[in-house]
């Protein structure tokens, strides 16, 4: 079955793959922050180009990126349409009874560019390192332990959850259940999802037992296998310079 693995291309070799994940996460996060704070769509467009360049440098196939971005794009498109039509201001265009304001078009374009750029940058940031190393990097940069454990277990068990979901729906289908737009389908889906949650809860108890029996006492301990070198800081300097340039461009208008 298809597994939603964001680190599917973590084995490739590129300047982003060889970048220490701690420095990479911090640097690209600064870049993301600088882009989402931009107020000018022209500068935001530069941010989008920078994000595309980073994805290109990471060697992660654009087809993979696009497949994983489709829901973000769908959401952005919805936002684009709503903002364009609902923001008051000078008339730009009229389509039958709908009117689009200049301010609305500008705002929706700005938000779309910022959102797509930020989502694109996740790929060079997380997709170029094995997920377990990204988690270790997050731990090293002092992200709260509970959040890291939550991410780790979500990543580890999402595959199992999807398998279980498939099994439970296959079992229902094998007994003649067909999804339709009626109350029975809604009720059955609710029951199946509820069953999945109960099973997940039972599994968490068993996992807890397994963890406790191997000495777990609330804090996740791992070995430190990350090393820093001069190149990491050079790459960080480039990314942060990019972030500062974008911010300055936006600020100077």
């Amino acid at each position, binding site marked *: 079955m298809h597994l939603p693995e964001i680190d599917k291309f973590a084995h490739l070799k590129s300047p982003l793959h060889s970048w220490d994940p701690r420095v990479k996460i911090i640097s690209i996060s600064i870049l993301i922050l600088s882009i989402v704070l931009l107020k000018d769509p022209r500068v935001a467009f530069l941010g989008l180009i920078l994000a595309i360049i980073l994805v290109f440098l990471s060697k992660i196939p654009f087809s993979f990126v696009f497949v994983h971005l489709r829901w973000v794009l769908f959401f952005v498109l919805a936002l684009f349409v709503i903002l364009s039509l609902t923001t008051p201001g000078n008339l730009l265009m009229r389509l039958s009874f709908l009117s689009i304001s200049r301010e609305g078009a500008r705002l929706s374009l700005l938000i779309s560019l910022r959102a797509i750029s930020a989502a694109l940058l996740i790929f060079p940031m997380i997709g170029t390192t094995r997920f*377990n190393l990204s988690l270790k990097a997050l731990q090293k940069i002092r992200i709260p332990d509970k959040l890291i454990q939550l991410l780790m277990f979500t990543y*580890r*068990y999402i595959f199992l959850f999807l398998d279980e979901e498939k099994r439970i729906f296959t079992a229902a289908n094998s007994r003649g259940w067909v999804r339709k737009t009626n109350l029975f389908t809604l009720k059955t889906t609710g029951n199946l999802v509820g069953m999945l949650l109960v099973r997940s809860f039972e599994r968490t108890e068993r996992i807890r*037992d*397994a*963890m406790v*029996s*191997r*000495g777990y006492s609330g804090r996740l301990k791992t*070995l430190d296998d990350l090393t820093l070198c001069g190149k990491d800081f050079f790459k960080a300097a480039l990314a942060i310079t990019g972030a500062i340039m974008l911010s300055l461009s936006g600020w100077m208008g």
Partner: protein
Amino acid sequence: MSKAIRVRNLEYVYPDGTKALKGIDLDILKSESVGLIGPNGAGKSTLLLHLNGILKGQQSSVEVLGMKIEEKNLIKVRQKVAIVFQEPDDQLFMPTVFDDVAFGPINADYPEEKVRAKVKEALKGIRMESYEKRCSHHLSFGEKKRISLATVLSMQPEILILDEPTSNLDPRARRHLIELLKNLSLTKIVAGHDLELILEICQRVILLDEGEIVANADTRGVLSNKSLMESHGLELPLSLAA
């Protein structure tokens, strides 16, 4: 020979009122391999969870290698008593095989070199040295079972508890696991319904039903007792039925 496990008057009632264990008295000697059999719901898993302090019985005494299971020595007990759970996906909760096998030694505060050495040694023990960097969710069921064993062997336990170790394994993976277990010179407790496995690796067997020990004797003697086995919802193993 000294005792590895000593249990006296172990009672356990689940929060919903179900009496899972009723006055269990049990001694297991060091280096002994003991089978724990019984029908579903007999209390086998509940008993196993008491042996490294995950569950704590009411007014009972459980001693492991001379240590009473109490809050103050739980960490030490858990280093000595390792449990391999039935479902390998419950046992393998870390993103990679290395992290999973290293989990116990790291929690025991071993220095880094020692952790790495223990991981290597444990994976070598199950002949899966090259799996260190593999993701747990990408392994086959049989591989997951073997890695589950490595996750506890890396802690160098003195007592190994296995809950249904061969369930859902194909014959080759099952045989592989049995050979691995036979070569481990630890105190072993094997719970399950694979009576052929128990016959092969255990000298003694304990038959549990409705939370009580109904038989505790040499494996062949118990497993070949047709009336005893059938009266507790079990069957003779095929090799003894002939």
